[in-house]
């Protein structure tokens, strides 16, 4: 089953009222801000999301009441801080399908999670002639570490191409994933095209070749229910800051046996067992991978983000975004000169909507929209190889989240229409 296909296709006639958007908007203080004289319309969620009051307050509360360094401390603050930190781990493990707490490692973000795997598992398991499979739509974070590792080890990078519609082209997949394959590294959802990839199918293919699979969930985890056991992936990585949580927190899920077999990454306090001048042993997982003082306050506050998402329900979030994505694609397509990139079949895509204007560079689009209070992103979205494949120098990207509604899309639509007039097109 492809992720997403389980849900019935949304139609524009379904009202966007399953949860109360006005109430949700009110939970996000920044959405009341004015930007260049206009109320902020934030459509840059694939870059980073905004934070609800409960998350901001969790940081506040932590520093006001609990702040202490964790583990080893015998005083009450240290105990409270440790408990709060570890509670986020437990919640994260539940959030992605009920894995074990020890299988959750906290990092700075998706990028560090992937690099951790490359520096530890990759360093020990990739050898000359081995193959690492990626896709043409990877974010630099899920391409460059493998490129560098392959170069160092004389391994080979193979890539799964994309179709003109922006889906993975699986025609040749049984050649691409072959007995030399050691790892399949694939994004669960593209940050440029919005495509949701068939991770479960690819996991089966990888495992049939005795290869591992790492899924980059940076764009998927914030926007749809994720069950890593059902997907049957070996590693799954994502970032707090894209899912209502603070910056500086990332997650690496790894299967217990894998994490246990891997060497540590950053060496220092908290990750050791015993240290003498002649001998060093490592702590058990997950602490083995969390050397040094972690980003305690933000890990603690990330808990509030997960709870907020749980409360709304990832299923509801996915449904809302499907409806809104359909609405937005339909509306933007009406504007002359605007071309939507990526799949148009809603069940197989998320709410990152890249578009181009046949006459205007994305940077001009972004600057114009900003003057109207609308935040989108323009550029290569850290996916330069994909840009070459789709033959664009850059795209403009509007990306949706739970606090966006039809009114936001309408504001975008109207501004784009006005823009073309402004530039005399």
């Amino acid at each position, binding site marked *: 089953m492809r992720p997403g296909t389980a849900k019935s296709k949304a139609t524009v006639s379904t009202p966007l009222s399953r949860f109360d958007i006005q109430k949700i908007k009110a939970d996000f203080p920044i959405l009341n801000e004015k930007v260049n004289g206009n109320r902020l319309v934030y459509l840059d969620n694939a870059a980073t999301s905004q934070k609800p009051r409960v998350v901001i307050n969790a940081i506040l509360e932590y520093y006001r009441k609990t702040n202490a360094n964790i*583990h080893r401390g015998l005083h009450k603050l240290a105990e409270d801080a440790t408990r709060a930190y570890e509670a986020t781990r437990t919640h994260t493990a539940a959030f992605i399908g009920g894995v*074990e707490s020890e299988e959750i490692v906290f990092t700075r973000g998706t990028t560090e999670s992937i690099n951790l795997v490359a520096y530890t598992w990759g360093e020990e398991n990739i050898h000359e002639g081995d193959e690492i499979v990626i896709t043409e739509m990877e974010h630099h974070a899920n391409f460059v570490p493998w490129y560098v590792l392959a170069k160092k080890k004389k391994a080979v990078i193979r890539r799964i191409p994309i179709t003109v519609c922006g889906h993975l082209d699986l025609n040749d997949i049984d050649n691409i994933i072959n007995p030399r394959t050691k790892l399949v590294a694939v994004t669960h959802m593209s940050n440029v095209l919005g495509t949701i990839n068939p991770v479960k199918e690819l996991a089966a293919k990888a495992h049939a070749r005795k290869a591992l699979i790492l899924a980059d969930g940076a764009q998927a985890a914030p926007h749809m229910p994720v069950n890593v056991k059902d997907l049957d992936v070996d590693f799954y990585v994502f970032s707090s800051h894209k899912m209502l949580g603070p910056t500086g927190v990332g997650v690496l899920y790894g299967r217990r046996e894998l994490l246990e077999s891997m060497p540590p990454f950053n060496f220092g306090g908290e990750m050791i067992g015993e240290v003498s001048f002649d001998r060093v042993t490592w*702590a*058990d997982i997950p602490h083995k991978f969390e050397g040094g003082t972690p980003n305690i306050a933000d890990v603690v506050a990330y808990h509030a983000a997960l709870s907020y998402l749980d409360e709304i329900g990832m299923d509801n979030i996915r449904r809302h975004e499907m409806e809104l994505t359909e609405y937005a694609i339909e509306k933007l397509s009406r504007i002359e000169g605007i071309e939507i990139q990526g799949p148009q079949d809603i069940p197989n895509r998320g709410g990152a909507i890249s578009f181009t204007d046949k006459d205007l560079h994305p940077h001009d689009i972004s600057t114009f929209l900003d003057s109207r209070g609308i935040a989108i992103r323009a550029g290569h979205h850290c996916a330069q190889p994909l840009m070459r494949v789709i033959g664009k120098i850059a795209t403009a990207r509007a990306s949706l989240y739970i606090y966006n509604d039809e009114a936001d899309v309408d504001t975008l639509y109207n501004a784009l229409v006005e823009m073309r007039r402004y530039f005399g097109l």
Partner: protein
Amino acid sequence: MSNSLDDLYREIILDHYRSPRGKQPLEHFDISSDGHNPSCGDEISMEVEMDKERATLKNIHVDCKGCAISTASGSILAELIKGKTLDEARQIAELVKKILKGEEVEVPDSLGDLDALKGVRQFPVRIKCALLAWVTLIEGLKNYENGKDEKAVVSTEDDDEKKK
């Protein structure tokens, strides 16, 4: 709140801490086992002389370099385990584990001092101090029963109590 402090350092604990039992080194022993808590630095070493006919733990020597809790726990162990069969000793050790995990357990009168360890549960970071002697014993017994000659060595990795 010094109530909970008094709960941790109950009179029985302080008594065992101040005059630990089993201090007397043994001339002969059949079981030898070292335990170590790297994150605290607690160290314990333990020898047991077996009564081979009756298969009981005849004599026990516990040497503990550690905090009041680990010392008292080792001393309680030395007192309670003496004269017990292998099975009984193991059962007592399992009972202590349950107590420290916070399970609801009845402590028989004959093992009354174990009750004093219940106060430790309010102090999660101290639980491994209380556990150390007991896991060290279990490892020693295991080696003995498996006919291994070498000394058992236990090292509790840090933060065990934080794992589920």
